[in-house]
């Protein structure tokens, strides 16, 4: 049976043109820059100094408190110091700069390709390894994984849900991981189950990746308690709340965390990283990044070391084509436009998508014709046209009453709007302002 969430959502052209490009290592050269804050929470604390020699996989910045994550060197070489480096959007943040010299790994990391099927580690040992490896959610939110796996007191986890929806157009890195590292992924799922002490896990995959569904189903017969769920392709199925709804039929209560439903959601790449951290002792210092676009001659799914300058990825696909209008980090529905091509990649970087000139421009806005397509498209069942009007007029109380806090900014409303109104832009603005009002003590 093919499942999905029942209300809202859109299905943009999939454009998964990089789906046949096998994962490929990209080793950086020159200088790499690793941000000490790669995650949500407190920035890590740098523990190396200028002139230090580091190896690939060596801890270079220590987690600062519980909601924080370790940062490891992704190359071997010499530390050049800490500098303020501009990120994709040009915002400067402290980063550790390292001159790349060869690729010498920490001895503790198991570099063999042999699959380690040993599942004897205890829950505590698994969680400790995950914490140590500096794992964060690789779906984009970069929330520290060990925090996510710490079930709050009074709540119980019942199931792990693995997000293999990859519902954004263009993106294919999760798909490649499912195809090429299926068994490692399933072991990762078993480790996650053990870590939070549940015996059920679901992997939700959209049917536009039928071969991934088939191959994982075949491998999953050797692993108990893992169900591969076929999902109808629909955006934003990969949203945490939508995915839980699609798979279990339960809605996460408004303003509550997903754990309220007993589900813990993890991303495909994160789950593979769990396998690598626990079974191979490998910290998180590389991640898969799709580099794609209709105007590119080659489509790539790279495995990129954290901190590699974007320009090296762009060089690897032959430079920026003349008719490029926009370059996005992430998928075209929720990704962010990149302004700085020298910025280093981060743990959470999942894709670089090239959009051509003609696609990049938005249509001219015209009057709202009250067609209610935005209402039908909103997966959170809000009324985007109304929130837009209220935000435009800065009516914060009314925004609050109309549940603006629930907006997940998926962009379905703007995607579907025949009048090209900047719906989600204004809703975002209104949400930021109204949330301040909500947070303010009375």
């Amino acid at each position, binding site marked *: 049976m093919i499942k999905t969430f029942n209300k809202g959502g859109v299905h943009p052209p999939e454009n998964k043109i990089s789906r046949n490009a096998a994962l490929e290592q990209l080793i950086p050269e020159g200088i790499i820059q690793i941000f000490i804050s790669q995650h949500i929470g407190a920035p890590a604390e740098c523990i190396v100094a200028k002139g230090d020699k580091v190896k690939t996989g060596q801890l270079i910045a220590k987690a600062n408190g519980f909601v924080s994550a370790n940062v490891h060197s992704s190359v071997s070489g010499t530390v050049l110091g800490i500098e303020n480096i501009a990120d994709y959007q040009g915002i400067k943040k402290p980063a550790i700069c390292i001159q790349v010299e060869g690729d010498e790994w920490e001895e503790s990391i198991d570099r063999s390709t042999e699959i380690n099927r040993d599942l004897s580690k205890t829950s505590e040992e698994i969680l400790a390894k995950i914490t140590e490896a500096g794992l964060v959610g690789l779906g984009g939110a970069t929330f520290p994984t060990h925090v996510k796996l710490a079930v709050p007191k009074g709540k119980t986890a019942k199931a792990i849900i693995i997000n293999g929806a990859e519902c954004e157009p263009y993106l294919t890195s999760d798909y490649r991981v499912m195809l090429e590292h299926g068994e490692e992924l399933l072991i990762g799922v078993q480790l996650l189950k053990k870590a939070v002490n549940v015996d059920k896990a679901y992997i939700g995959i959209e049917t536009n990746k039928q071969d991934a569904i088939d191959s994982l189903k075949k491998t999953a017969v050797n692993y108990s308690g893992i169900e591969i769920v076929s999902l109808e392709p629909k955006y934003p199925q990969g949203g945490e709340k939508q995915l839980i709804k699609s798979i279990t039929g339960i809605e996460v*209560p408004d303003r509550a965390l997903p754990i309220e439903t007993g589900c813990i959601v993890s991303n495909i790449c994160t789950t593979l990283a769990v396998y690598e951290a626990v079974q191979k002792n490998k910290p998180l210092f590389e991640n898969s990044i799709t580099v794609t676009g209709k105007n590119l001659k080659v489509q790539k799914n790279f495995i990129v070391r954290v901190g590699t300058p974007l320009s090296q990825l762009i060089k690897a696909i032959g430079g920026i084509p003349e008719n490029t209008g926009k370059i996005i980090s992430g998928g075209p529905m929720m990704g962010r436009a990149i302004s700085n091509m020298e910025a280093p990649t981060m743990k959470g970087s999942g894709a670089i998508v090239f959009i051509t000139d003609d696609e990049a421009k938005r249509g001219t806005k015209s009057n709202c014709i009250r067609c209610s397509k935005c209402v039908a498209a909103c997966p959170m069942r809000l009324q985007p046209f109304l929130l837009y009007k209220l935000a435009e007029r800065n009516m914060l109380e009314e925004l609050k009453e109309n549940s603006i806090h629930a907006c997940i900014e998926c962009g379905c409303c703007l995607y579907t709007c025949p009048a090209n109104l900047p719906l989600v832009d204004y809703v975002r603005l209104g949400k930021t302002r109204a949330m301040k009002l909500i947070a303010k003590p009375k």
Partner: protein
Amino acid sequence: MNKLIISPSPHVHGKFSTKRLMRDVVIALLPALLVSFYFFGLGAVKVVGLSVISCVAFEYLIQRFLLKTAPSTNDLSAVVTGLILSLNLPSNLPWWIVIIGSLIAIGVGKMVFGGLGNNPFNPALVGRVFLLIARPVEMTTWPLPLTLVTPDATTGATPLAIVKEGLKNGLTIDQIKESSDYTFSYLDTLFGQIGGSLGEVSAVALLLGFAYLLVRKVITWHIPVSIFATVIVFSGILHFASPDRFIDPVFHLLTGGMILGAVYMATDYVTSPMTPKGMAVYGVGIGLLTILIRTFGSYPEGMSFAILFMNAIVPLINKYMKPKLFGEVK
């Protein structure tokens, strides 16, 4: 190198545009237009052409010279208003009445409120009802379809008017059906062999357009289906309670502006509710009011008034019929 665009997500856009939606409505109306040309001949062509041209012209002129804004006539919304207005008119209507109707539809129905998207009432219906009240005789003198037996245009009453008149004269439904005026079968109403406005004659042609609108996702089923269901249930109850006084639901469904109104006018985006729940309430309201007016009011036809009345209530419906938030906790 050329400059890259930096803007917030989403970076891709769907295929809908106001123009495309309006074009689809025009395409959906083609079968009904062709049927009306076939049955009413040149008169129908004249009324449709005049109505469309004057609606577009008035919109352009008002925007250009009165409001001094850039004319938005290329979004085709004035074409749709013109088409729908003409489908609500008899084919022998004098040309100047058509033009006045267009002026009221565009000028009073749409432009005074700020143009497309801001009008509370369906512009075509505003035009139609204005004409119905101002020129009742011309508006209710319907030519009968041209047939081989009567190649010259003759005029006659619509099925609804025949029934209304008969009941007023103290006849029962069965007696009316046996009378000499009642010359049509339900099959005729399906294909258009009856008297009436241009667009109220062929149920099949209108339903064909309905299917097209659904397939193209221009409208959803909620409004038309809830209107039809209400009409069937309400007129069905009346009919079974007193078959002599109330005609059957099939008659109500197939005659008058029922299908034209439910599919093309009640679903007008601007003047209908925003949520499926609201649409259902709105549809039920239109269904109830139509049957009430048709059976108990003095007009034989109630669709236009019912839609206009419910248009007025739409803001209220929108206020109370909000979608249920994802994961809503009471």
